[in-house]
């Protein structure tokens, strides 16, 4: 790999961990590494990235870049691409990453692979590996042309921990107007249903088929185990349970001692929220459901038969 440009991301004023994951990925591919830091008054972050393996770090620092906007970020990344002519541009697949990446690819008229989990070298070419069909299948993609853009799933690589000599170069011509105006970031008020401290969570998914079944089928198991109830996104989207029950990247990220997933197929957005649980038991009728890949123990079967049996067995084990 000749030359990689890493687009860094700032989170709460500091370098986001996922940027260091891109460093690991870029270093594995070899070749020349340039990074980009975008923001306002973020020189220290650029210095930090230079010392943590980001190579030659370009600093796009302008008051107009204080908050993420697609216009501002696209302009800064375009400047860096024009200046560096990289073969590969790596961006974290985060809410700002996926917002800007497609716009950039269309502006440059180049190929893009999104939410990539791995990049392999195959002869002289690269193969981009990612999930498809909501994680049911993996896919190998070939992307032609130069540059190529890849957005990379956070957590797909380890963060780079080495310390390196790097440098910071200021990039000019990065300021300007944005049609999209940032107003504010709102943090949703914490609901009364805090799952992050639960010892046991029993979550239900679309497999429960209707809202009444959370009460009728899932709740007896929740109560028998002394657990808290959680849910997958489709359940919350359908209005069966309030958002505060949602486990996943856009809900609560949990790591209980035991996580029981009932009728949840295991879309990435759910897995991100529960895969660091100490022990995972999944119940699903589809033996190929992705949830079984992260589960320690699986039960393949009809949850409407299995779950009542589990609830009864737990109850009797507790002495009725």
């Amino acid at each position: 790999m000749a030359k990689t440009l890493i687009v860094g991301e700032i989170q709460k004023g500091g370098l986001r961990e996922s940027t260091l994951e891109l460093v690991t990925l870029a270093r594995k591919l070899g070749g020349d590494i340039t990074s980009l830091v975008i923001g306002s008054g973020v020189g220290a972050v650029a210095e930090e990235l230079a010392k943590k393996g980001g190579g030659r770090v370009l600093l796009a620092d302008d008051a107009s870049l204080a908050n993420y906007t697609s216009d501002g970020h696209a302009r800064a990344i375009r400047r860096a691409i024009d200046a560096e002519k990289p073969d590969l541009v790596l961006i974290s697949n985060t809410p700002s990453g996926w917002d800007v990446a497609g716009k950039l690819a269309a502006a440059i008229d180049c190929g893009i692979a999104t939410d990539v989990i791995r990049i392999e070298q195959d002869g002289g070419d690269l193969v981009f590996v990612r999930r498809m069909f909501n994680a049911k299948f993996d896919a190998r993609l070939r992307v032609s042309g130069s540059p190529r853009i890849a957005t990379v799933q956070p957590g797909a690589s380890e963060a780079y921990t080495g310390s390196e000599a790097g440098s910071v170069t200021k990039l000019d011509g990065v300021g300007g107007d944005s049609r999209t105006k940032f107003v504010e970031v709102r943090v949703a008020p914490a609901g009364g249903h805090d799952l992050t401290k639960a010892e046991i969570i029993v979550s239900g998914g679309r497999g429960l088929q209707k809202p009444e079944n959370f009460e009728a089928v899932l709740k007896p198991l929740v109560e028998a185990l002394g657990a808290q109830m959680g849910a997958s996104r489709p359940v919350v989207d359908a209005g069966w349970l309030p958002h505060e029950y949602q486990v996943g990247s856009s809900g609560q990220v949990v790591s209980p001692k035991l996580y029981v997933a009932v009728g949840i197929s295991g879309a990435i957005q759910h897995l991100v929220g529960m895969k660091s649980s100490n022990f995972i038991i999944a119940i699903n009728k589809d033996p190929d459901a992705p949830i079984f890949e992260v589960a320690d123990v699986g039960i393949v079967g009809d949850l409407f038969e299995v779950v009542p049996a589990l609830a009864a067995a737990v109850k009797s084990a507790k002495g009725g």
Partner: protein
Amino acid sequence: MKILVCLKQVPHKDARLELAADGSWIQDANIKFEINDYDNYALEEALRVKDKDATSEVIVLSIGPDRVQQSLRTALGMGADRAIQIWDDGLAKADSLAIAKTIAAVAKTESCDLVLMGLMSDDTNFAVTGPMLAELLGFPHATGIVSAKLDGGQVEVERELEGGALEVVKLPLPCLLTVQTGMNEVRYASLKGIMQAKKKPLDKKSLGDVGLAAAAVAPKVKVEKIYSPPKGGGAEILTGSKDEIAGKFVGKVKELGLL
């Protein structure tokens, strides 16, 4: 207000997906298809604008073979005014950018105030067609929105970030928004709506009709192979009768010191 809603037809949520023999895609000959879930919320949001302002026009567009006409009819039954289907064999292996270019070719002739579509599709999960289309149209955009308030010539939206945080941004019209699931409660087509839908226009266009040559939609991204994720490290599957499985489950919970 003229609103274009882009709908993708994807395999039905409950369809059992099998790989094609050559591993290049799924077997899609004998499965049921439906409107991509994210796109349903985009359509609903457009129809809500029309509910408030009957002079608004909602156009639905889908790229795909004739099976997509059924989804377009469903959208017309829900209240969209007219539908456009684009298909050409040259689009069978199209990548996201080719799809965006094809939609852009039509959208440019429609002078829409607003383009709405889902954040991503449930089949490829690429999530880039929206921002690409916005760029090609010269529109500002916002992705993954969970609310939109139209106010004169602009719209204020909430974008879903991570961990329950929302980013509020304002965009001038015309603009493009991609929609998260759960944004609203999607309506069903009424019987009356379904009857009316039969008389609403559904235009089928080829690549040539929209002024594109096959070379303009040659893919830069190729799916070389799709396959089931490697097993191993997967779950230990409990077997036996229902009661035996329940007994083993209790054993596991006990081992964890939780019973």
